[in-house]
């Protein structure tokens, strides 16, 4: 018993030491990005949990700036992919090019061979392109011709979706959207924040972030995140939440029964656990508490709960359902 307690104390110390990179990153990012603390936190959580992130928000909310600044602070490669209806999978993944001089094919790698990818307006490209990207996100490798290439580590995809102008878009199917660890909804900055943004842009020089970390720092931080202790009671809490989303009627959520067409998949349980650990890490804690799970619940489950026509007719959102689940599931 005493030994395990010492382990947690040691872990807390280790996390305190390792999580210093969070302070450094946050400081550099805040030089360029004003406000949007939740988005920056979620970006770091996805980075530390080896996941991908889907951002939904109107244009001009610093989505591109956030990921490009992150890439700059970490000394990593960054690619931006603007998804359009005429985009082809080869435009992302790469292709084989015939060299008449050498009389052979050579591989031309696509922009996906980067550490950080911004897939802008992912729902504007047809299914085959989305599928190519999402497969690469899952497999972490790409096959061009006969050759298979491993993708760089860390590999973080931040895709964006515009909630307006849905005409001519290809909404991501549920099975593919499930591959994103988090779906974050970005809102407009506050008045004071926007004032600062305005000043930054009017100044002679726009603030620039410095490179302060190496990719290996991120990889080692990920290892520490994995060590964050998660008690069986927290595991039970996560499962209770996910099962309540699947079987609302059996979990005291009778009034939500007609609004949920499908609940969270096992990938939801895995990602909620991973995200909770990363959240505890950025809060400098060596163990997960229910607050961490609750904090990550919306971003992990938002895109994993299907709504019925009744829910849409009655203006019930997935956020309402998640709130109801959290208000019903007892904390162990």
């Amino acid at each position, binding site marked *: 018993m005493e030994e395990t*307690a010492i382990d*947690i104390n040691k872990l807390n110390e280790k996390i305190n030491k390792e999580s210093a990179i969070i302070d450094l990153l946050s400081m550099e990012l805040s030089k360029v990005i004003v406000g949007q603390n939740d988005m920056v936190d979620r970006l770091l959580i996805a980075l530390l949990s080896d996941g991908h992130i889907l951002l939904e928000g109107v244009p001009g909310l610093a989505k591109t700036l956030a990921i490009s600044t992150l890439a700059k602070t970490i000394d990593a490669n960054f690619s931006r992919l603007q998804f359009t209806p005429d985009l082809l999978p080869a435009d992302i993944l790469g292709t084989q090019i015939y060299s008449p001089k050498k009389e052979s094919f050579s591989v031309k790698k696509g922009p996906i061979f980067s550490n950080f990818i911004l897939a802008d307006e992912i729902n504007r490209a047809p299914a085959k392109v989305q599928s190519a990207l999402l497969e690469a996100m899952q497999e972490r490798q790409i096959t061009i011709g006969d050759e298979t290439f491993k993708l760089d580590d860390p590999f973080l995809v931040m895709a964006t979706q515009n909630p307006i102008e849905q005409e001519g878009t290809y909404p991501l199917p549920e099975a593919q959207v499930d591959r994103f660890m988090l779906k974050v909804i970005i809102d407009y900055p506050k008045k004071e924040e926007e004032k600062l943004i305005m000043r930054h842009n009017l100044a002679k020089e726009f603030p620039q972030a410095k490179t302060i970390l190496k990719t290996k720092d991120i990889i080692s931080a990920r290892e520490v995140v994995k060590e964050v*202790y998660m008690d069986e009671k927290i595991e039970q809490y996560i499962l209770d939440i996910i099962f309540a989303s699947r079987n609302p009627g059996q979990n005291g959520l009778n009034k939500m029964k007609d609004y949920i067409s499908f609940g969270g998949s096992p990938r939801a349980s895995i990602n909620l656990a991973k995200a909770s650990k990363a959240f505890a890490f950025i809060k400098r804690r060596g163990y997960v508490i229910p*607050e961490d799970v609750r904090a990550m619940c919306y971003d992990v489950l938002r895109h994993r709960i299907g709504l019925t026509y009744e829910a849409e007719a009655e203006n019930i959102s997935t956020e309402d359902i998640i709130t109801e689940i959290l208000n019903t599931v007892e*904390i162990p």
Partner: protein
Amino acid sequence: MKKLFFIFILISSISFSQTAILDTNTILIGDQIELNISVELNLNEEYNWPEFTDSVYKKVEIISQSDLKEDTTENSKIISQQILLTCFDSGSYYLPPIVFNKNKKTEGLLLNVNTISINDSSAMMDITDTKIGTKDDYTAEEIEEKERNFWKRIAWIIGILMLLFLIYYLIKKYKKGESVITKRKIIVPPHITALNKLQNLQKKKLWQKGELKEYYSELSLILREYTENRFNFQALELPTSDITKNLKQIDSNILSKLEFVLLKADNIKYAKGLSLEEENKESMKKSKEFIQLTKIEKDESSK
């Protein structure tokens, strides 16, 4: 002399030997009437019996007709036929004379077909009543009785519907396994329940047996249950930080007692935390103090 002649003519016309008689001259639309045709002829007298197809005259329709019947006497023969008629259009219809031969023909007949008048009084009509007509066709007593019958029927329908609803309600209750007769609930104040549970927890001597996690899990549960019932918010579903946020209205010294126990419990439950003997006793003491200091007195609750 003239008078005598007139009487002779009248008698001869009444006792003429060919007749076409209707049951009645006035019917309602769709009513059926019988037309009896008969003619008396000499035994060797020639005649031409008319052949009826669908109608006697325009809209007066034939439903059925009997075969010709011939009765013979010493000097004469009587031929007769019954025809069942109806009419579906109101109005007066003239049925032309039936000619048997150059000497024998019947008189023309007049048939009046009336429509059924409908007015508000028909709603109160007894549909089983064969008497059909307007309100004016009934006496005051009849109308009164019909109204009485109408309200009686309404009362019966309401009674039956109520009975059906009661049966449905009982079946539903029975299926749910609920008792129809509700028992009076005895409401125990939350502080009594919580203090009793703390007493029982103490008796279990969990931390003394090394079951520290179980001890703090139960202690935290008792306090959260008490908080939920005493302060009317969902404390069982909320983490410690949210519980304390919801209790901002109470004195910070009292709140700190709850916070101490819940945070200690969280540390032991979720972080493999350890606790000294004194801390365990202190947690129990602070829990009891929190309950005692925030309980609702009987007088206060009855206000």
